[in-house]
């Protein structure tokens, strides 16, 4: 329903791109067909760590239909430690290059070693088996804690620990040590009436987007490159390919196809440089699509983590001291999200004394990538579980404990940054008032759990253009990949500002040559930052339309007043509608287009919370979710259905992380690289996911909107763990909380009780 002050904002129109999606007509990356196209497949390392002795591709090249083969030797050699952006994080260029094709050494099972282009997929697959690669297997370490030990095999001989103290003295698997300190932790702990300390282990998980990673490229004879791909960031792919292949950025056009999910995982040029090279060699367009097994083993999953958290509180619930030790798995090359994790856990609470140590650790596993609120879920699981235990010890309501310590505007995050407008306290209050919180919960082996979640959210830069049609309609050209309905959201802003109806606005996502620079769709930034760009473009259009209206109304521009689609001459009854101004553009001064650019925006952080009722089967430990409510401060919901969708989707990914999902490694090999064995939630595992939107306006941007994509994945595992405790009396500290793990914890707890 529209709020009184808005006509379109807050309503639920059908998304403009929806028709192409429900009819199967929209083209996603793997749907690209270019005349004369070849198919590529990638040969991948069977070893978690090995030296490449030799590659003999002669037999494969002799197979009829094989057109070209490339290896790491075909890539420009990049030795510098220059870094490049890859969405929400950065990575050294040489490592980015090694994720496209390895050279000399492989660092994880699944790393690309060679690639084939052939006239059919079957021939490309067959050719892979004919490439003879000689490896010398090297000692490997596939476990985070093992990798941190002194005696662990050193994965990179040139990697030294970076910390505030400087660079380490000898090579190490610990790439970085970060620290945040406030006050005096020891003194703080001494003042505490209750101290809870627990250690936690979470496992590597995958974003699980349903559309596999893909890319199609054509390298034209004039050196101009076109890449059709599914990506969260077309400009990220452009700069990565340009850097890895040493091609000028202006020679590369990235055409963002419809994208089948990303969640942080589709910012990296895994296949793109490979198909560009193959196209250059063959002179033909080349397409590559990963299998699901390749997606699991060779793209970037979310980090696994080992965490220790110790929190002290006074009898009245005031938190006085907190300590955290975080080790996050980066996989084969440095760059785990331990930095954001270190900020996420304690920042929601005012704690006078804390010390947080974070370690970025390399292992012989796939190089991790961002996954929705990268790093936030493991630390959220740890902190929110410990807080639940403190509330229990203090016999305090768990929401009251949070309320007692919750940050507000002006308070500081652990890194010292001051919070702008935030709605954490309002959210907690709302949880207490929600019917779910006080609903009776009946039966045996059932429990209700609560946990809060926080995410900083990104902002970045976006560019949009508005162009106008002679029938009075508007084209909106944006560069932000639409993964979940943002075309609708952006069109709503145009319709609201220009006084048009939704169907009169035509949003489209442009390629890197038809619209200015855009950061990618990640970090919950699109509705916020691209929304600002759209709003600015609308204001630029309105300013010009005033001049055109003045001409049409034969008035002075200073006399023109704009209100909801009408340009009026002040103090008279003369007016002209925006549609007529648009129709008359040619005759009132010629064509016009408006541009909007966003940048330098204040942070618009998001707070969320999960409330869950569940039942535990005492015989098997299996959890059944009975009821779920996901809360979030969204600033302002422009299209409430898609905002709810973000909360529901994030909550269910959090449920999957909490209950089912994990990479299982044995000897450096992932044992479960399929959707059957890597178990994501199905419709059958879940009830309806209720949502509760709280609208505390953000400090910057139109309508007070905040990004909403990520915060909802932070709180679910802790909420589930807290509910399990209430149901069966065991504190779960390891993810995923499978039936087996819960059953074991229950059996152990029963033995302890019998013994005592």
């Amino acid at each position: 329903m529209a709020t009184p002050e808005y006509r379109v904002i807050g309503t639920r129109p059908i998304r403009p791109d929806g028709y192409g999606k429900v009819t199967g007509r929209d083209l996603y990356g793997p749907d690209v067909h270019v005349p004369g196209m070849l198919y590529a497949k990638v040969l991948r390392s069977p070893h978690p760590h090995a030296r490449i002795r030799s590659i003999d591709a002669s037999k494969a090249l002799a197979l009829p239909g094989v057109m070209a083969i490339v290896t790491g030797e075909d890539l420009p050699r990049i030795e510098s430690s220059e870094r490049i952006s890859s969405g929400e994080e950065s990575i050294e260029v040489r490592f980015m290059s090694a994720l496209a094709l390895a050279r000399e050494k492989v660092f994880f099972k699944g790393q690309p070693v060679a690639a084939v282009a052939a006239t059919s997929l079957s021939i490309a697959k067959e050719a892979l088996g004919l490439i003879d690669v000689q490896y010398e297997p090297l000692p490997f370490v596939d476990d985070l804690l093992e990798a941190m030990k002194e005696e662990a095999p050193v994965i990179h001989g040139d990697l030294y620990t970076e910390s505030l103290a400087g660079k380490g003295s000898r090579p190490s698997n610990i790439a970085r040590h970060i620290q945040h300190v406030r006050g005096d932790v020891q003194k703080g702990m001494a003042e505490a009436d209750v101290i809870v300390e627990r250690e936690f282990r979470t496992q590597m998980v995958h974003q699980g987007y349903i559309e596999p990673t893909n890319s199609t490229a054509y390298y034209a004879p004039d050196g101009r490159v076109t890449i059709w791909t599914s990506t969260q960031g077309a400009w990220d792919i452009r700069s990565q390919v340009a850097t890895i292949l040493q091609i000028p950025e202006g020679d590369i056009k990235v055409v963002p196809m419809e994208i089948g999910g990303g969640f942080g995982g589709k910012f990296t040029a895994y296949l793109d440089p490979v198909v560009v090279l193959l196209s250059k060699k063959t002179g033909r367009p080349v397409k590559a699509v990963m299998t699901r097994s390749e997606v699991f083993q060779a793209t970037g999953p979310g980090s696994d983590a080992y965490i220790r958290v110790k929190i002290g509180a006074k009898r009245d619930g005031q938190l006085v001291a907190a300590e955290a030790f975080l080790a996050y798995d980066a996989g084969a090359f440095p760059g785990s999200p331990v930095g954001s994790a270190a900020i996420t856990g304690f920042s929601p609470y005012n704690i006078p004394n804390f010390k947080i140590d974070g370690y970025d650790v390399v292992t012989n596993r796939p190089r991790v990538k961002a996954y929705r609120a990268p790093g936030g879920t493991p630390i959220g699981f740890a902190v929110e579980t410990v807080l639940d235990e403190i509330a229990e010890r203090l016999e305090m309501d768990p929401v009251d404990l949070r309320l007692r310590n919750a940050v507000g505007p002006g308070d500081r995050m652990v890194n010292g940054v001051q919070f702008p407008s935030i709605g954490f306290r309002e959210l907690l209050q709302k949880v207490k008032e929600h019917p779910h919180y006080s609903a009776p919960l009946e039966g045996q082996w059932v429990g209700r759990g609560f946990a809060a979640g926080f995410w900083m959210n990104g902002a970045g830069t976006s560019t949009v253009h508005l162009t106008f049609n002679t029938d009075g309609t508007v084209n909106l050209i944006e560069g932000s990949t639409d993964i979940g309905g943002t075309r609708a959201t952006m069109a709503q802003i145009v319709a609201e500002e220009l006084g048009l109806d939704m169907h009169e606005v035509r949003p489209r996502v442009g390629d890197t040559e038809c619209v200015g620079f855009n950061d990618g769709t990640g970090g919950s930034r699109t509705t916020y930052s691209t929304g600002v760009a759209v709003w600015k473009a609308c204001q630029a259009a309105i300013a010009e339309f005033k001049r055109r209206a003045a001409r049409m109304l034969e008035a002075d521009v200073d006399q023109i007043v704009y209100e909801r689609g009408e340009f009026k001459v002040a103090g008279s009854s003369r007016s002209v509608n925006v549609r007529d101004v648009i129709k008359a553009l040619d005759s009132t001064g010629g064509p016009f287009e408006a541009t909007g650019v966003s940048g330098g925006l204040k942070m618009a952080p998001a707070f969320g919370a999960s409330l869950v009722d569940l039942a535990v089967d005492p015989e098997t430990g299996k959890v059944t979710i009975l009821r779920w409510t996901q809360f979030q401060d969204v600033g302002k919901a422009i299209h409430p259905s898609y905002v709810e969708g973000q909360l529901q989707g994030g909550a269910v990914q959090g449920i999957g992380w909490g209950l089912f999902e994990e990479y299982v490694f044995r000897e450096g090999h992932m044992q479960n690289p399929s959707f059957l064995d890597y178990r994501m939630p199905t419709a059958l595992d879940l009830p309806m996911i209720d949502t509760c939107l709280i609208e505390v306006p953000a400090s910057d941007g139109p309508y007070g909107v905040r990004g909403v994509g990520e915060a909802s994945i932070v709180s679910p595992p802790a909420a589930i763990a807290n509910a399990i405790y209430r149901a069966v009396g065991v504190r779960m500290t390891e993810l995923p909380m499978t039936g087996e793990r819960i059953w074991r914890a229950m059996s152990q707890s029963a033995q302890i009780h019998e013994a005592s």
Partner: protein
Amino acid sequence: MPGRMIVRAVINGEEREFLAEPRQTLLEVLREELLLTGTKEGCGNGNCGACTIIVDGRPANACLILAVQADGSTIETVEGLARGAELHPLQQAFLEEAALQCGICTPGFLMAAKALLDRNPDPTEAEVRHFLAGNLCRCTGYDKIVRAVLKAAAMMRREAGAPSEVSA
């Protein structure tokens, strides 16, 4: 290259004749040869349901059928779901309920849901969840998909003139 075989099938009401290698899946041929790319590939081994089509009235994963096995069968894909320019009630309900985010799983869900409603025009929420358990969606948490299927069922019952307890 292995010899190719002639396959004849009725696809979305149209008689089609095409060549397929014995080792090619129906999914590969639909997408790469017939350019019916509405049927998506998410896993290639029957775990995700993104390639759900209807073969001789039954939902099936196109990735688990060899193209040559489809000889003589009647196939429905998402491209054939709408009647001309008029959307199928499931398509309309998916749009109205915002039951898709990225949309990659949508064709599979639509076809699986059609197969459900063809045999059970009045399913319960539990029946919908059970029938759609072979289709993975990573964006929505299924809430809005289940609502859309229930809504489409009600729309179709009304259209069929059946007495319905569900009000508009």
